[in-house]
């Protein structure tokens, strides 16, 4: 069994990589992909802690697993909405560069 620290380091790295991407990439599609990476880092945490919890108490508790499944389903819906927004933004401005889409300001 893989020690829990490994998983924690792995999911943290995944989250940080995703956050870095969200903050630095200009392409809105890549930003959306990075958000997915962050989301999956959280999913990994949910599954991992669920498993760890069961091992610790020698029971079978799949609440965390079910949460992860919910999260994935919601992520799918979120991607659909996000892509739709990006598509309409592209139609309006002929670009998906988030630096250029800054009309909502002072």
């Amino acid at each position: 069994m893989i020690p829990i620290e490994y998983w924690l380091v792995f999911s943290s790295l995944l989250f940080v990589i995703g956050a870095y991407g969200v903050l630095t990439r200009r392409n809105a599609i890549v930003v959306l992909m990075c958000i997915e990476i962050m989301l999956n880092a959280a999913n990994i945490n949910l599954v991992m802690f669920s498993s760890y919890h069961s091992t610790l108490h020698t029971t079978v508790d799949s609440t965390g697993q079910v949460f992860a499944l919910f999260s994935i389903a919601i992520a799918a819906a979120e991607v659909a909405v996000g892509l739709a927004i990006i598509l309409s933004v592209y139609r309006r401005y002929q670009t998906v560069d988030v630096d250029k889409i800054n009309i909502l300001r002072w």
Partner: protein
Amino acid sequence: MLEYAWLIPVFPFAAFILIALLPKRTLWWEDGAVYAIGGALGAMCLSFLVVWDVVMGDTLIDGSQRFEWLVVGDFSVTFGIWIDQLSAVMLVVVSVVGTLVVFYSGGYMHGEGETRRRYYAEIMLFISVMYGLVIADNYLLMFIFWELVGLCSYLLIGFWYERPSAASAAKRAFIVTRVGDIMFMAGIIILFKYVGSLDFADLFSGAGVAAVPSDMMILATALIFGGAIGKSAQFPLHEWLPDAMEGPTTVSALIHAATMVKAGVYLTARSYPLLVQAPESLLFVAAIGGITALVAATAALAQNDIKRVLAYSTISQLGYMTLGLGAGGYLVIHADSAAGYSAATFHLMNHAFFKALLFLCAGSVIHAVGTNDMRQMGGLGKVMKITSLTMLIGSLAIAGMPPLSGFWSKDEVLAAVWHAGEFDPAFMMLWVMGIATAFLTAFYMFRMWFMTFAGEPRSDYHAHESPRIMTVPLMILAGLAVVSGFALFIGDGFKAFMEGSIDGLLAGAGHESVFDVAVEIFTDPLTYLTLALAIVGIVLAWRMYYVPGFDRSVFAKGFNGKLQRALENRWYISKFYDDFAIKVVYAASLVADAFDRHVIDGIVNGFAYLGGNMGQVLRRLQNGNVQRYTGLIVVGICLLLILVLYVLPWGGW
């Protein structure tokens, strides 16, 4: 009958409601005078029954007639009835003068048309609250009625409000008396702080008096007397009363001569159990009274308006009463004698009758001639026989001619002041002011009488005697002015009667018999001194204003005419107030204006400016770049995490 005393103010109040609310058709004769007369008569009959009980030795001072008005937790404000000898005297005055004035108004206000409805309603309200004032059993209730009579006074002085002078006189009366009212309120607040109750029964008991520290007692009593200074037009707040003559003469007679202005004297007399604990306040009371008597009497010398002469005379006589009360307090303390107290209340009653008479006579004259200016009268004695005769009786009474009422009471007051001089030499000086006032009073009253009724007409008027409804009240009042002085000798005498009202303060001194009182008056050389001065005053007035060919400019030229001008301008006191208001208050307003404009507005505008500028700077953060926002969120969360995980545990939380 005493348990029905609370009904006395109800009669006039009902009349007030009826006159104010009934449809116009049902007001009948003189726009509501019927209801007014009914209300006044009902209250008078009940008052007489109550007073009869008091004369028979019954009083209602045990708080058995009391009900709760306001309950807050375990604290309650109660209203009740307090009837003793002092209330009885006031009841007599208010009921008799009130009723006669209402009758007289039926003739005097005849030409006023529909505004009479307002007049009768206001007069009835006044009579009602005046009754309330004299039967109230605590300072709070008394203060409420005190303010209400002030309100009625304001309304009635300003009865002809379309005249600017009447409107401003009403305002002046209201504002000046308010100065005194605030002092009165401050005084009763101090009493409440120490005693925890404003009921007379609690305050005047030994425990109530003992609860107030002596320096606070001086302050409280002086402040309560401050209320009297305002209401009874004492120096230096007396200038509103001559101006109040802008109202109808009936109002002057009822409110500004016989009843409301007596409320201050009544208040001072009522507060006697407290005042005798503070001799300093008593001296203050007496000094104010003496100064008022003299200042007002001198100012009356040079007035040409018949009502203003009477107004100053009223102020001067009120000064007598206050002087008598101040001196009487010393007599209570040092001599166990109620002489000053009874003299002042006796003068209060007598003065109410003869001053109401004088005012109503003046009203009759004004009604006939159509002017207040005595320089345009003269010779009226021939056409107005009843008026001139009754006014002569009133003038003789106020001048102190025996056996008219003014002689007895004025003599009693002066004797009390003289007697008090044994205990404090200051009273000797006040006594000198008192007899000087007696001389001046006789002089200016007969100056007025001669100028009005004697000699030849000085203008083209068509005067005639007033109708019966006006002359009958004059005759009744003249009768009272003659006989009310003999109250001193009826039964046990007025003195013994009034002693009943403050017997708790007297160490059981035996009553003086009626015979002793009479002997005392007639064997005292001072009586004859006062009388001689008054006669000299009358003769001087006769010489100067009746005998033709007298060169009055001799007096006018004295002190280069400065004295004459000072008197005509009422010692410049009124002018001083005007200047004070204009210069000082205006300067203060300029400062306040500048402060408001620059400091207050500066602060408010400064905050607005600060907000605007900060917005200008901070809005740069809102640049529309979502990634910048996200970055700030991440940084913020990191900072929060550092705070929660490292800084706070390190600090011990």
